[in-house]
């Protein structure tokens, strides 16, 4: 079936070509980083995780969001979603692949990456993260490929696939819970040391992931002969709406605890992000941009007439994506390091090599996703779906 990814029209090849250019630039930048050390990035002794881990955190959420299509279809027998489960699963595959790549490019000694497997440390959450992420990648490729093969043959998927699919549901929740646990168990970082971290992660994942899926479905409808379906997109948009409401609500809960208790440790990071702290205001424009997009997305999603119009829905989904990306990536990861354990403030700005590598990894993800989508859509077009 993979041969279908090698057959395409002009637009397909131009798109893949552009992605390859970004992948090449990213790879060359990574070689430069490998040679010179991570000093070519904007990270510092105080901000030891930057845009790589920020993107990793955001993308784990997107990967988990495939479960928002799988649960209604396989558990609640919502037949309509049968049309798009494969698209959700392949989005999950690409997202998890990007996560693993982001971790690899962030390592100081990537040649020693196998040490995590050679010296298993069950007490380290990073160990479990490696297991669940790789497992999820394998699960989704396995499930997606088999479901697609069955569809191509015109028969229902094999019976032994059902338990594997059922396994993928808690597994999807686990990848994001484990990633949240990376942050939520660290005693020294007050911005992250909150029980609601995992809940916040899941809610923003289930907002941003399906939002991206909606955008891709709309693009698929425009560029191919396969229509994911009006009802499917409508249900997905409902999911995005509720998840987004929860996401914003959870954030406001954090703000209440911080500012009603007035405990400095709780307040400082939020103050830095939205108002600046001791004259340092580097991230303030970013965070208010994120807030703006959140408000826009909430309005466009909650108003039924807006949500039902595909063009407006697309704008809403893009707003969800931008708002959640900034909040989770920039706000959460960078903000957690400010102020540092000795209450000093160092700010962070990504450098050019860092940005190029980041774009290279995103391009790789999109490349894989485009190839997989090409296969899936061609099969659906052939079987007359």
């Amino acid at each position, binding site marked *: 079936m993979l041969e279908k990814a090698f057959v395409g029209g002009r637009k397909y090849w131009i798109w893949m070509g552009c992605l390859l250019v970004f992948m090449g630039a990213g790879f060359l930048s990574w070689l430069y980083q490998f040679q*010179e*050390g*991570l*000093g070519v*990035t904007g*990270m*510092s*002794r*105080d901000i*030891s*995780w930057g845009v790589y881990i920020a993107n990793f955190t955001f993308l784990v959420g997107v990967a988990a969001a495939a479960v928002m299509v799988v649960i209604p279809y396989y558990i609640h027998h919502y037949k309509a979603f049968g049309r798009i489960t494969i698209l959700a699963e392949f989005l999950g595959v690409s997202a998890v692949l990007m996560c693993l790549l982001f*971790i690899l490019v*962030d*390592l*100081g*000694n*990537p040649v*020693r*990456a196998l*040490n*995590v497997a*050679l*010296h*298993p*440390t069950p*007490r*380290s*959450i*990073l*160990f479990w993260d*490696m297991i669940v992420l790789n497992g999820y990648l394998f699960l989704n490729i396995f499930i997606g490929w088999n479901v697609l093969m069955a569809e191509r043959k015109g028969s229902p998927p094999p019976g032994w696939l059902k338990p594997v699919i059922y396994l993928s549901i808690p597994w999807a929740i686990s990848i994001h819970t484990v990633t949240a646990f*990376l942050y939520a*168990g*660290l*005693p*020294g*970082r007050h911005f992250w040391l909150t029980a609601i971290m995992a809940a916040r992660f899941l809610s923003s994942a289930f907002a941003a992931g399906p939002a991206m899926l909606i955008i891709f479905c709309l693009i698929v409808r425009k560029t191919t002969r396969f229509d994911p379906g009006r009802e499917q997109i409508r249900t997905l948009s409902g999911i995005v709406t509720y998840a987004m409401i929860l996401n914003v609500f959870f954030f406001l809960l954090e703000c209440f605890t911080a500012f009603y208790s007035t405990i*400095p*440790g709780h307040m400082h990071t939020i103050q830095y992000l939205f108002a600046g702290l001791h004259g340092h205001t580097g991230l303030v424009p970013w965070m208010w941009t994120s807030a703006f997009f959140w408000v826009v997305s909430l309005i466009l999603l909650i108003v039924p007439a807006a949500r039902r119009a595909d063009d407006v829905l697309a704008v809403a989904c893009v707003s969800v994506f931008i708002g959640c990306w900034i909040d989770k990536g920039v706000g959460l990861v960078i903000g*957690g*390091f400010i102020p*540092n*354990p*000795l*209450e*000093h403030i*160092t700010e962070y700005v990504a450098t050019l090599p860092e940005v190029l590598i980041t774009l290279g990894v995103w391009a790789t993800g999109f490349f894989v996703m485009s190839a997989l989508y090409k296969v899936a859509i061609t099969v659906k077009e052939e079987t007359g779906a």
Partner: protein
Amino acid sequence: MGVNRRKFLKIAGVSALGAAASPATEALAITPTEWLDKQLEGFSIPEFLLHFFHKPAGSQPAEALTATRWAMAVNVRMLDEEIVEACIEACHKIHNVPHIKNPKREIKWLWHDEYEHVFPGQENEYIDENLQKLPFLVLCNHCFNPPCCRVCPTKATFKRKSDGVVMMDMHRCIGCRFCMAACPFGARSFNWVDPRKYIKEEEQNPEYPTRTKGVVEKCQFCAERLAKGQMPACVEVAQEICKRKGKEPALVFGDLDDPNSEVRQVLRSHYSIRRKPELGTQPNVYYIV
């Protein structure tokens, strides 16, 4: 009939073993986990398997200083600029710590900061001015319950079972920097660039390695000096200068588990505080204020 007899013999045998086991373990006075640990000679199972076909490892040198819980007490009122600079200089020199001017890339094992930054949870606007301006020496606290060791995915940083020192295995570190995020005290530095570019060749200590880019490093309580029977460099330097100035020693080092050690004596007779004790990491560096 045969089955019954066989069954009886099996049960009798197991019971006899069980009856013998209890006094046997009492005689050995060792639990199964302790026994396993002894067989593994302090290594973990994967490490032991990696070295399986080789001779047993070494032993502790006779001249080594031993303890089960190394700790340091900083007598803050004895500190001054000269002592602080000398300690930092000594530590960084013998461990080939690079001197990087850019504060974003700097590497520091031992440094100093002011009271409000070292003890942010103990804010005190009207504190004694001398204390406010004092250069507090800051280093890895070698916590008894270190979060950095809990999060390391490869056990590249670990609490040594024999003496409680939180060590770095530079050969295993993959540079994920999770330990840096976990440390509540900001004690760890990462080699963002090749450190050798920032060490003058004539100032290198040939008896100690440098590090490469891509690994995390921090104070290790001069484990290599303790093995030779010497005090950590900062402690030795501080004690020398304090002796010369006729002061009580500014840095005291010893075994917290030994009630007669220097550090226990000084903690018994002075009030001391630790950094962020509410986090439960149980730091082993005490500050006598």
